[in-house]
């Protein structure tokens, strides 16, 4: 069936009313989530874009859901600000809506938190074509049911996101990265555990298995050298210091280390889960945010292994069944039924 395109709220509503089964798509950087299944019509939202409001002094912006993250970040950069949850695949064209639907954060989430910590509000079209708003456009708000948080990781199950509001922060004035090889997984894990528990305010803390840590610092130029030195002392290694580290981390958050792998997946990891994960036949990978977030490239057998081990994951590319396990029936099904009673959207 031909692809639909919606470039306004009214067109989204019309598409929802006319088609029994829809799959929203931004720029398609996560094809496992945006490719229409049997009987579904793709709803292309890449034309529903643009920043609607941005007051740098408020640390808040609102944009259409189809706006590319890159476009938003360019506007923020002009005012020395950034999206602290560091949305992945920005350089590949990822949109705000796709990022929220997939529930993705990148390596710099280590410093201030992930997507769920920064989303402030949403306007979406529910399964009956009704426009619903949740949250707000201020950094603090406790009024009404928080539909914006429901959208995080929803895969579009409750509605088509039209507008999104986020909190942003000032970007650190300077950054530097320390890369240290620690001679084995156990040693690397011990170092990781140690750093996680200390108030070091790291921008990123990644484990490249088996034994390399990459630590990014951000702050005033006047303090960075001293903080780097303290890190080197803590780790008992000089390591390798990158002062021009922006391009490197752009590559990391674009998941360029997964290029060439047939299947890309996000795995919510934990320190105690890493040894188990490391025993599975996984491809190229990187544990971000102190080991809490794994992005991994897989061959089909690796994906089977994850599933057999019962480890929750989300496939971004290369498989039909993206979400494992499915959401908890009792609560999810009721909320889904309230907002999408006819099962028009994914996870129906």
């Amino acid at each position: 069936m031909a692809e639909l395109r919606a470039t306004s709220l009214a067109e989204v509503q019309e598409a929802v009313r006319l088609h029994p089964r829809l799959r929203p798509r931004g720029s398609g950087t996560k094809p496992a989530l945006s490719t229409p299944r049997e009987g579904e019509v793709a709803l292309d939202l890449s034309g529903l874009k643009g920043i609607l409001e941005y007051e740098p002094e408020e640390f808040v912006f609102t944009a259409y859901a189809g706006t590319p993250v890159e476009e938003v970040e360019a506007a923020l950069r002009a005012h020395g600000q950034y999206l602290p949850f560091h949305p992945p695949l920005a350089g590949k064209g990822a949109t705000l809506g796709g990022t929220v639907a997939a529930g993705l954060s990148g390596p710099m989430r280590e410093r201030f938190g992930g997507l769920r910590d920064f989303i402030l509000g949403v306007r979406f079209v529910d399964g009956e074509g009704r426009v619903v708003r949740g949250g707000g456009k201020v950094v603090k708000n406790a009024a009404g049911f928080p539909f914006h948080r429901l959208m995080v990781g929803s895969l579009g199950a409750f509605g088509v996101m039209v507008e999104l509001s986020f909190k942003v922060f000032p970007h650190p004035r300077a950054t530097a990265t320390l890369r240290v090889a620690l001679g084995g997984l156990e040693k690397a894990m011990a170092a990781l555990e140690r750093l996680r528990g200390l108030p070091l305010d790291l921008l990123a803390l990644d484990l490249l298995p088996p034994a390399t840590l990459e630590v990014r610092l951000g702050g005033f130029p006047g303090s960075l050298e001293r903080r780097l030195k303290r890190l080197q002392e803590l780790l008992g290694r000089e390591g390798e210091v990158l002062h021009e580290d922006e391009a490197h981390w752009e590559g990391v958050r674009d998941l360029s280390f997964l290029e060439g792998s047939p299947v890309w997946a996000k795995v919510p990891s934990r320190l105690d889960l890493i040894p188990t994960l490391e025993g599975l036949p996984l491809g190229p990978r990187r544990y971000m945010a102190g080991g809490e977030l794994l992005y991994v490239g897989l061959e089909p057998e690796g994906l089977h292994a994850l599933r057999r081990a019962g480890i929750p994951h989300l496939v971004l590319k290369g498989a039909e069944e993206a979400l494992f396990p499915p959401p908890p029936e009792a609560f999810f099904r009721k909320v889904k039924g309230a907002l999408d009673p006819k099962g028009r959207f994914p996870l129906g």
Partner: protein
Amino acid sequence: MGFLEELKALFPPGRVLTREAELAPYESDALTAYRKRPLAVVLPERKEEVVEAVRLCHRYGVPFVARGSGTSLSGGSLPVEGGLVIALNRMNRILRLDPKARIAVVEPGVVNLEVSRAAAPYGLYYAPDPSSQPISTIGGNVAFNSGGAHCLKYGMTAGHVLALEAVTPEGEVVRLGGEGLEGVGPDLAGFFVGTEGLLGVALEITLRLLPKPEAYHTLLAAYGSLEAAGNAVSQVIRSRLLPGAMEIMDRLAIEAAEAAVKAGYPQAEALLIVELEGPKEEVEEEAKLLAQVIQESGATEVRIAQSEAERQAIWKGRKAAFSAVGRLSPDYIVQDGVVPRSRLGEALKEIGRLSQEYGLRVANVFHAGDGNLHPLVLYDGKKPGELERAEELAGEILKLCVRLGGSLTGEHGIGVEKKGYMPEMFATEDLLAMERVKEALDPKGLANRGKVLPEPGGRPGLEEVHG
């Protein structure tokens, strides 16, 4: 058997309260102008007992309200007339504290500050710090998505709740979220937080802990006007600093705090507290910039805490301000509307005008970093008509916040107090969507009935809510 008999069969004697004198303390929460007499109060000690109580309510169609310490300022834990109160204070165990995973798994009756206290030996803490934190419980914090003085930088309770076990109003037990910082699938735990108990009762909560900041730099600046203090906040933000907290108090609040705890504050029209926190090297650099910004902001006096004791002294007055205002007036209403930070000056000016118009004093203490106002409307409940006038003034302030692009509430929640104002902030379709979700999970409308969602026909009459 009837409902009460079955309830008494489920709980040992002494843990079902039905006598008038026993029920009295549960008739209201911190919003004392509102009172309702429940049918009974149960005191569960284990989560299975909560589930049993909820199931029983569901079977008999009896409305229930879960309650912690009853510190809600929006009437969020006001009982339903003839309904059940499930008081969770006895479920106050920290079930697990895992410093390596940086999480704490707690029962809903655990007091907020107890979490940080238990985490302290590991250099960790629980970040959300509502002013009620020495008393309020995590279950209540979860229901109302509590805030505190550090929300700009650290967010609200929702970000710090990783997982929940909850019982739905129909008595089903569900697990939402996971033990790590990241998840896959819809963020149902995040959605549950802030729904004010309308979608169920949290039985077990997994919290994110953070490493306690290494260094603090706490500055107190005095200004000749409230506006000048507000402008200083904007200048701090424009300098690209991200303080952990920025708080403002006006003259009335300063005087009250002085009288109550002798914080030693300077005489001023407004005081600004700015606190930087982080690694010591970083805080040193930030402090240099902050000093410059504050110097240029026209502060009439600047003090910097040189020790932890001095830091605590600066905070003592701020934290005491609410109860201190109680000394200035027999009664007060506190609102917590939010405005975009750049409209703070405008909002405060308008609040001043409204205060004059209504002939009621308003003290201002607020979280300036996130635009969260806390106007305290002073009144005397014994003077006929004064409560009604104070409520009307408070309502005008709420509408003002929404008009300026903000929110009805930054952290206290809608409760029973502000539900009539929901249509000011949300469109009919938004409210209907909330109602549909409520209806799907609670078809009998039992869980915290009468809160958040406005009743058809608008605001309830005062005579009704004040009982």
